[in-house]
């Protein structure tokens, strides 16, 4: 059936195209620059108005607008390629295409491009909701294609919807097959240069006040699934960065070097776990302390932190192990000692003096640690997320003055005091604890679990973790911060109000945990199905590593071949055209080129009589041709070759 003869000004087709386009663009509107989103909305509205009131926009206006938006995209991104700019540009062009669409071909093009543009939304968000939305949007596009090709347009919407749902279901097995078997590329498919958007989570320096802001985020930082056993919540310190340099105001990472060789491991791994790290646009990744074996492609540094060569711009899945390591025989090198003892000159002198005085009263470094922790415990040190702002001599101001703050204040003061007393110490930031999800058997670590603690070097023992914040109140690390809000109003009262957190209680909490379990499954199994996962899966099926590539080729060839066979089959139906047919179609195409519309169910006599009324010149020129054609086709069964050739030549010669 030659659907190309269907024109798009049948009732409902243009509104249908507008709706499909809006459905495709909706998710992008949240991520594209405002002016691009608004422009596409305006173009859709413009299309509707021109359709509704039969306005014709001059061609040059459209050309100008296209050029202007091209320039706009370039000015915005300083490029027209790359993820953001590319998507912005294609969305604009997509909307322009609809504005100027006037025939079947344009409409079909818009609908097919819709599939591509729809998928770009996935580059911004990979959540389940997005997946579901894209699925539904796909149904809408299919409905559009069916309506465009149906004689009655959008009439019988229920049927069309059913049909497209069935089509999608029919495609599902192929989709699943391709999902599992289609060769995955190493690394993300969309390895485009990413924007310089600021990441969330902890940052690469620490000013007292930084982490306090984090507590108000309930976003998920990462999820952890322990393979065998899990440490208790109070022992779950997720190490991220180590700060060893302090200039009186800001803690920064010190110089460090990657460990080439991992320390000798004697025992079985203490903990084995899998992490789903949400993108935070930085290079560091998190692991339990006593980290030893980092995941593939990640460097381990001598302060036992991890770094990826690339930023974590997409959800990163990794596996890691932690081991108990005996550090008793380790020594700090001179420069490490110096690095972890260094204090800024002429800064916070009062605390320095206080520390030296206190150190003199104790026997050992261990005792000194106990003394300081006892001081925190016994003196009225308060934990608050909204401490007084200290602009100068922040350690003095906090330790000897306000005595209120949060983990940053405590850990930086603690390390400062240790160093002042000559004990090497450093600040560690990361996350502490995690919420256990019984429905998926994993832990959820949120941005609100961000924490800063310290490590103190003890000769013969190694680095010992000391959490001075825990000394404020022993239960601080046993239950996560959120749950304390209700119970300990006087400690966390302000925090609860300011962040506007609603306590998930009972059913609500269960539901949110179930939902998170589902999300975790989605992230790990579907979104995280990368090359490694595919190799694992295929080797489970008994396909060797060396063979999987051939499997991929075989799949590709099968698909291409079946496509070819299908295409040939379609072609063969229109293959055996004879000379008369070819010439007649040529004649009809010549008439169409003159703007004369021909329906597929019109016979030659009807066409000719309609020409007589609508375009006498065309009629006069084409009348003998139609007569010849009718004679060839309907008056004789076996016309002579001469007559056929004559008809062919007449059609070739036909023009206006």
């Amino acid at each position, binding site marked *: *059936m030659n659907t190309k003869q269907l024109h798009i000004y049948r009732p409902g087709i243009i509104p249908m195209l507008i709706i499909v386009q809006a459905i495709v663009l909706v998710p992008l509107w949240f991520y594209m620059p405002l002016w691009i989103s608004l422009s596409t909305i305006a173009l859709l509205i413009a299309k509707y108005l021109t359709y509704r009131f039969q306005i014709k926009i001059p061609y040059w206006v459209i050309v100008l607008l296209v050029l202007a938006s091209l320039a706009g995209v370039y000015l915005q991104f300083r490029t027209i390629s790359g993820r953001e700019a590319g998507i912005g540009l294609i969305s604009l062009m997509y909307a322009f295409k609809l504005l100027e669409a006037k025939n079947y071909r344009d409409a079909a093009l818009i609908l097919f491009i819709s599939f591509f543009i729809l998928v770009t939304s996935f580059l911004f968000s990979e959540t389940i909701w997005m997946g579901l939305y894209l699925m539904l949007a796909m149904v809408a596009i299919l409905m559009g294609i069916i309506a465009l090709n149906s004689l009655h347009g959008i009439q019988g919407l229920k049927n069309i919807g059913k049909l497209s749902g069935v089509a999608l279901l029919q495609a599902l097995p192929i989709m699943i097959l391709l999902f599992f078997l289609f060769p995955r590329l190493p690394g993300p498919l969309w390895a485009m240069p990413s924007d310089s958007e600021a990441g969330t989570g902890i940052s690469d320096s620490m000013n007292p006040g930084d982490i306090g802001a984090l507590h108000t985020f309930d976003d998920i930082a990462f999820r952890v699934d322990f393979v065998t056993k899990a440490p208790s919540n109070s022992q779950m310190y997720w190490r991220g960065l180590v700060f060893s340099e302090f200039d009186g105001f800001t803690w920064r990472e010190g110089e460090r070097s990657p460990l080439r060789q991992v320390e000798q491991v004697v025992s079985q791994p203490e903990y084995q776990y899998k992490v789903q790290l949400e993108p935070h646009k930085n290079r560091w990744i998190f692991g339990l302390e006593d980290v030893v074996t980092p995941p593939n492609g990640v460097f381990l540094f001598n302060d036992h932190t991890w770094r990826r060569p690339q930023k974590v711009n997409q959800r990163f899945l990794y596996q890691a192990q932690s081991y108990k390591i005996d550090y008793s025989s380790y020594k700090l090198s001179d420069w490490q000692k110096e690095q972890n003892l260094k204090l800024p000159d002429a800064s916070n002198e009062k605390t320095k003096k206080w520390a030296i005085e206190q150190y003199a009263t104790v026997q050992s470094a261990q005792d000194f640690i106990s003394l300081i922790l006892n001081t925190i415990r016994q003196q009225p040190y308060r934990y608050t997320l909204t401490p007084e702002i200290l602009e100068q001599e922040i350690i003095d101001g906090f330790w000897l003055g306000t005595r209120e703050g949060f983990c940053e204040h405590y850990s930086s003061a603690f390390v400062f005091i240790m160093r002042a007393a000559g004990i090497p110490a450093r600040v560690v930031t990361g996350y502490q604890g995690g919420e256990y999800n019984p429905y998926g058997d994993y832990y959820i670590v949120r941005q609100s679990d961000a924490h800063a603690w310290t490590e103190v070097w003890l000769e013969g023992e190694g680095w010992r973790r000391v959490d001075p914040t825990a000394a404020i109140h022993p239960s601080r690390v046993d239950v996560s911060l959120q749950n304390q809000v209700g119970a300990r109003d006087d400690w966390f009262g302000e925090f609860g109000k300011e962040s506007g957190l609603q306590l998930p209680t009972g059913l609500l909490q269960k539901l949110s945990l179930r939902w998170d379990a589902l999300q975790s499954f989605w992230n790990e199994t579907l979104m995280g199905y990368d090359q490694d996962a595919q190799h694992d899966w295929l080797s489970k099926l008994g396909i060797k590593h060396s063979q999987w590539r051939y499997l991929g080729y075989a799949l590709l060839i099968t698909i291409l071949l079946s496509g070819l066979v299908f295409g040939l089959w379609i072609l063969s139906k229109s293959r055996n055209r004879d000379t008369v*047919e070819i010439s007649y179609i040529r004649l009809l195409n010549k008439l169409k080129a003159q703007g004369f519309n021909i329906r597929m169910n019109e*016979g030659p006599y009807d066409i000719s009589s309609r020409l007589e009324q609508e375009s006498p010149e065309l009629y006069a020129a084409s009348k003998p041709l139609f007569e010849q054609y009718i004679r060839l086709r*309907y008056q*004789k069964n076996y016309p002579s070759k001469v007559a056929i050739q004559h008809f062919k030549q007449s059609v070739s010669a036909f023009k206006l």
Partner: protein
Amino acid sequence: MQQLLAPVLSQLNKVVLGKPHQVKLSVACLLARGHLLIEDLPGMGKTTLGQAIAKVFGLDFQRIQFTSDILPADIVGANIFDREKGTFEFHKGPVFSQLILADEINRATPKAQSALLEAMEETQVTVEGQTFQLPEPFFVIATQNPSHQIGTYSLPESQLDRFLFKVELGYPDPGFEKILLKGHSGRVRLDTLETMLEIDKLIEIQGQVDKVMVSEHLLSYVMDLINATRQSPDFAHGISPRGGLALVGAAKAWALLENRDFVLPEDIQQVFGPTVVHRLQSVTTSSSNAQQAVDDILQQTPVPA
């Protein structure tokens, strides 16, 4: 041919106002030796059409009003005892005429219906072993009320097949309605009609219909259409080969009315609806759906180039 048939059509159109297409279909039906089924509400001019055709072609005309108590003998006739001769004699029923208007055929019981329908199929009547030939030409115009009306026995599909066309007259256009209301009734206008065609001329034309050229190329279009009815989800089953033959025959008659001695796809399109709608059983019961689905098939089946 045109000079013979054109005046016939114009005469008929003077009586049946505003329905040139239905009139032309009726004449085509007669030329193709088919029978005509008119389905419409009472008072739409069905009888007028039948009488006008009889008069214009000079056919002898009988009208049988079907009722629920009509018997087969009332239609075909019966053997009646003749006292003087002392024998049974066959008294011909109304079916022995060249044009029969079977009014409201679906009000009769199936037994009475089939008496007429058998006569139509075989053009002969058998009563108690005696066979009587029906006259030639033999043309039945049956009318039926829409089947949703009370007291109707729908004709079974196998008998609907005996009718070449089923046409609906429908309400007249407002313009013609006004003329109708102003002027004389159809009966009066009927009286002014003259016979335009002798019977042997009509039989000759019927013979010419058979000779109208149907090219192979056209047959491929017919087959596309028939296949479309067979594949359409709207119908329980498609057009039978006999239905296909009827379609070609009807198109030939139409082509002749168009003054051509060969059939064009346009002829097929003109007679397709009247020929197939009553032969198709719609999956849903509404007959307007069947009409719509048939129109769809016509629109969606391309004319082969």
